């Protein structure tokens, strides 16, 4: 059964077209309507290149990554943020506002530099 979801907002460029129809079958996107070339391609292949399935960690950048769980990876990140003298948090432009709020609050707590793609 193909389900059609209407009035979807396209999260792939600053136009945020809000009239996209997305066809979904068995939790997979099988088609779109109204989206442009970029939007369509991204909805169809949003999983893109290589998608990670679990958090990865390594002490030394020359080593290979080892799999880990979210709790450990995030705790280690929190420790790095807290111990750093001048931590930089950069990006933020492809996550939603609620996540941005939590991320920025983290930056305020640790005293970081917060910057996004608008400045480059």
């Amino acid at each position, binding site marked *: 059964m193909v389900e059609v979801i209407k009035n979807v907002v396209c999260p792939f460029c600053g136009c945020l077209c809000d009239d996209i129809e997305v066809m979904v079958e068995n939790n997979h996107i099988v088609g779109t309507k109204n989206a442009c070339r970029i939007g369509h391609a991204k909805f169809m292949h949003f999983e893109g290149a290589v998608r990670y399935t679990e958090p990865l960690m390594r002490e030394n950048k020359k080593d290979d990554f080892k799999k880990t769980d979210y709790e450990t990876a995030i705790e280690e990140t929190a420790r790095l943020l*807290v111990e750093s003298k*001048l931590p930089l948090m950069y990006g933020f432009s492809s996550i939603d506002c609620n996540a941005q709020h939590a991320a920025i609050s983290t930056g305020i707590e640790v*005293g970081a530099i917060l910057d*996004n793609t608008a400045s480059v």
Partner: protein
Amino acid sequence: MAVQEIGYPVCTLGEAKSRSDVVIFWGCNPIHAHPRHMGRYSIYARGFFRERGRNDRTVIVVDPRKTDTAKLADVHVQLEPHKDYELVSAMRAALRGYEFEVDSVAGVPVETIYEAMDLCKSAQFGQLYFGMGVTMSKGRHRNVDIAINLIIDLNTYTKFGLMPMRGHYNVNGFNQVVTWLTGYPFGVDLTRGYPRYNPGETCANDVLQRGETDMMLNIAADSGAHFPQKAIEHMAKIPLVCVDPHQTPTTEISNIVIPTSFSGVETGGVAYRMDGVPLELKKVVDVPEGIWTDKDVFDYMLKKVKEML
């Protein structure tokens, strides 16, 4: 930066669709980067006062290259690369009625400059959209500064607005949220316990290129592919954490990778359109098993950070 020093006239894309009759694209190529921008909002869209769509609008494209967008323009102002500041200065002079003693400025014949300014002056509702071509060329945010001054000048004749063409879908959202929380739109330095803002000193590229930052958290951005070499070299030296669903050149040089779901596809949320209109994102498929959302990750990080401090 320029924006906070002066302020500038804004409008929504809906208003631009209904009213704008002169449209300038400066250093952007919407046909490729924002494919539906012209059709839905700026050029071809049939608006309330612009029923005939494209026929009711004059399109000026300012770009050193003959882009596909420039090919559709009524006037293509083909300036020499990196001469944006010079050209806008000349436009402001033309607007004030000064005579030029040269034949061309920034590679553009003065007749073209006069023609473009006449078109802008006679507009009922003009709109300037600018892109990376302006902010990435020599002068950077100073180019935006002077473009704003041009818009202010034009507003003594008619109504004219200006809008940056945002690439990533929620650039504006970050600027909104961080302004709400710290008072500044980007490049905020909180390391002294209070917010400071001084682009050229406190932006990501500044602290990376000067080698000052000693840890970086990179959130769904491929800085490893887009930053200058010197910045990337420093990123490779310091502890680097990436929150990103995908493998990218940045994750390749990181110590920790935290994958997340896709907002707007696998989770809902809110994003700000380039004109500052917030829209509700929709979830269309489920998050893959075991993957946390961006919000889960940062909520947990905030909790842990608070415990450690």
